[in-house]
Each structure stands twice: as C-alpha cells, then as structure tokens.
C-alpha cells in the first residue's frame, strides 16, 4: 500500500487552508451566497473532514470498513446539520 507522501500531505494541507479561508469569507459575506451560505459552509466542512480522514489519517489505504465508518460519520454530521438548519431557518 502506498502511504501518503510528504508532497501529497502538503497538497492536502493547501486544500484545507484554501477551503477554510473560502468558507470563512463566505460566512462573513453572507450576501454572496445568501441563504445557501450555511449549506456551502457545511459542504466545504465535509470535504475538509473527508480530506483529513483519507489523507492525514491515511484511511484511504486502510481496510474499507474503517474508511466507510468515518466517511459515513462525516457526511451524516454535515447532512443532519444542514437538514436541521434548513427545517428551521429554511432555504426558501
């Protein structure tokens, strides 16, 4: 199995930093995405979490069950947060 190389890890870190700054900017400029800001922010958070799970924790080369368990947790959290946000504040 190929472990994550330092070069790959730095690439993932650059993605994480860029995604963090973008979602921070989106949240501070609510007019840009409007009511969809929360959806965008949580989607970016899930992508960031997935990157940490697959590349920093190296679960992309771990037994499939571990990868599935962590990915399900990540998307379930983001999905529930967005669903409950939408049902209260609403997107329409």
């Amino acid at each position, binding site marked *: *199995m190929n*472990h*994550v*190389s*330092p070069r790959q*890890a*730095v690439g*993932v*870190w650059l993605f*994480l*930093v860029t995604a*963090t*700054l973008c*979602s*921070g900017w989106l*949240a*501070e400029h*609510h007019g840009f995405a409007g009511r969809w*800001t*929360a959806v965008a*922010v*949580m989607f*970016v*958070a899930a992508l*960031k*979490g997935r990157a*940490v*799970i697959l*590349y*920093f*924790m*190296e*679960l992309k*080369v*771990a*037994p499939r069950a*571990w990868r599935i*368990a*962590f990915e399900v*947790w*990540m998307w*379930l*959290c*983001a999905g*529930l*947060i967005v669903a*409950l*946000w939408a*049902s*209260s*504040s609403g997107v329409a």
Partner: protein
Amino acid sequence: MTELVLKGAPVAGASGKAGASAPGILTFIIADVAVFGVLFLAFMLERSGQLALFDSSSSALDVQLGLLNTLILMTSGLFVVLAVHAARQGQSVATRRWLLASFVVGAGFGINKAIEYSDKLTHGITMLSNDFFMFYYVLTGVHFVHFVAGMIVLAVLWFRAGREEVNGPLFGWIESGGLYWHMVDLLWIVIFPMLYLLGPR
C-alpha cells in the same frame, strides 16, 4: 497511519511490523466522534426551537479566532503526518522535530482558546447566559479537554522518540497518537462552522 492489523494479519501497510494498536485507537476514535455527533444533533435540535437567540448569540463569537484555530489545527496535523512519515523511515531526529513543531503550533490553539474564553467571561458571558452558550462551553470545553490530552500525547511521544527506535515498537504509539491528534482536528472542522458560521452575520 495504515499499518492496520485486523484478525491477526496485516491488511495494509508495507511493513506491518508495528501498529497493531491502530485498530484499537480507531475504535476509540469512532466511538468518541459518534458521541460528539449526538451533541451536534442536540445542538441543532435546540437551535431549531430558539433560532433568533442562537443566531444572535452566534454572531457574538469571533470568527477570526475560530478561523485561526482551524488553520492552527490543520497545520499541526500536517506536521504530525510528517512525523509519522519520518518515523516510518526510521528517522528519529526528523520525527522529533516534526512532533515538536506540531506541539508548538498546536499550543497556539490553547492560547487562542484562553483569549476567547477570557473575553467571553469578561463580558459576563457564561454557560448560564443562555442555551446557545451552554452548548458553546460544553462543546468547545469537551473538545478542549481532547486537545489537552493530544498535546500531552505529543509531548510524551517526543520524549520517547529521543530514547527509543522510532520504527520499532514505538511506531505503533506514534501512529496511534497521530490518529488521535487528527481526531481533534476533525471534530473542530465540524464544531467551528456549526457554532460560528451557520447564522447570518
């Protein structure tokens, strides 16, 4: 982090020589994050019933400090990845250097949290102020306890890496400690947007 061994046989990883402890730590981590998942659900359900209060309270939080803390944990996490890589190669000096870097950068999270908590308390905002801040203090407080435990683990690993072969039996501990540290990062990736960014600002 993938010298994982299940049912006694290496299933991933090139060496398979150390790291039998990894599935154990992964079981702990998935159970731990599942508990946090329940807390996230409770927060969102409570928010649904007190939307205006939660949104106005959330807007009182300092997004810049939260962003900085996210960047700190991610950078510290990168250094742990590099420490594990160096340990896998048997490079003791590099392993210790990256563990130390991870610790030093990670300490910034603790300093930021101290600044944030003291600012809130100075303004009379406690966990009794309202339901939002009750969740704020519980979620960030329990996460902070995990952070402190992670910092202790990094310090112990740095100390032991100076006295033992990093690609010997210690490697499993370095790998497991690294996985734990990434969990601290992973939890903050959800906590930060949920507490700080959901409402209009």
